[in-house]
């Protein structure tokens, strides 16, 4: 990996001081995928519940109970998909932890997941990201669903990202970063930003 850091899509470093955040990290190599899997749902639901506690309950900025329910679900869905991907594609040989990070500012809510990837996986993922960024998300989603049905062993990878963009109005960004201590494994962070307008009305 020649570049130390590569950004794709909508990925802005967070700079606001006015923010709340929460990070969960999972130690690498400590449990097999299957036993980890059930924790994805627990963690994702927790992030959904957590974010709602920061929303104003009264005043001009308050949102209704049904919007809270919607927001809780959106965060839980996005977090679950990002965690599932991170767990599935995590480079086992790395000592990089899998983590999920929730951030809340006045403007948006973001959920990001990080995991280790070896050079081949990183290249494949980047190629997929380019494919995502080039096309119309609605058409790509339908194309992916059709392909999934036709193949003998359908590959549903990427559908999670497409549903986040298409059904939840999320803006996605990626950061591939080389590691100083482990040159053969990079850290990829996938971030989904949910904008307030998306939270006010269904796309």
């Amino acid at each position, binding site marked *: 990996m020649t570049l130390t850091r590569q950004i794709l899509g909508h990925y802005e470093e967070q700079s606001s001081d006015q923010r709340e955040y929460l990070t969960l990290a999972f130690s690498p190599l400590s449990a097999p995928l299957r036993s980890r899997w059930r924790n994805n749902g627990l963690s994702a639901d927790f992030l959904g519940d957590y974010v709602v506690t920061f929303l104003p309950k009264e005043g001009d900025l308050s949102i209704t109970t049904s919007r809270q329910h919607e927001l809780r*679900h959106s965060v839980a869905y996005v977090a679950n998909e990002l965690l*599932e991907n991170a767990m599935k594609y995590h480079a086992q040989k790395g000592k990089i932890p899998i983590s999920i990070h929730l951030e809340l500012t006045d403007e948006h809510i973001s959920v990001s997941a990080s995991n280790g990837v070896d050079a081949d996986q990183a290249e494949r993922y980047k190629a997929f990201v380019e494919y995502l960024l080039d096309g119309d998300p609605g058409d790509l989603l339908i194309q992916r669903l059709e392909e999934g049905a036709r193949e003998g062993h359908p590959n549903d990878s990427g559908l999670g990202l497409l549903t986040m963009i298409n059904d939840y109005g999320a803006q996605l960004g990626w950061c591939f970063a080389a590691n100083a201590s482990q040159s053969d494994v990079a850290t990829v962070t996938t971030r989904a930003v949910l904008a307030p307008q998306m939270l006010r009305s269904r796309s």
Partner: protein
Amino acid sequence: MKNIIGESYEVRVEEGSSTVIFKGALRLTGMEDYAPIFELLKATLATESAQVLLDLRELDFLNSSGITMFSRFVIEARDRADVALEFIASEGIPWQARSLKNLQRLMPSLKIVLT
């Protein structure tokens, strides 16, 4: 046809009909794990001129692999001209209001009733 009961979900076929009722949260790891549910759904298409109803009103959560499973089933049903497929969904469950419309793009004759 048998019912499938998992840790966080339940898929039940109503006796003597082609109605399948889903409950809980479905977050299985991929198509391999969804295969038993997919087979149960496919079995509803075995009878001629089938009227198949999927009741999702208590399915609170579905991951993207689950969406893939439903889309595979919808495509199977689409390929059968004599099958009428209907989903009963709930407006109050966000994923249903957001994602079920994609299945309708796959099969325009799919009827989705939001309650």
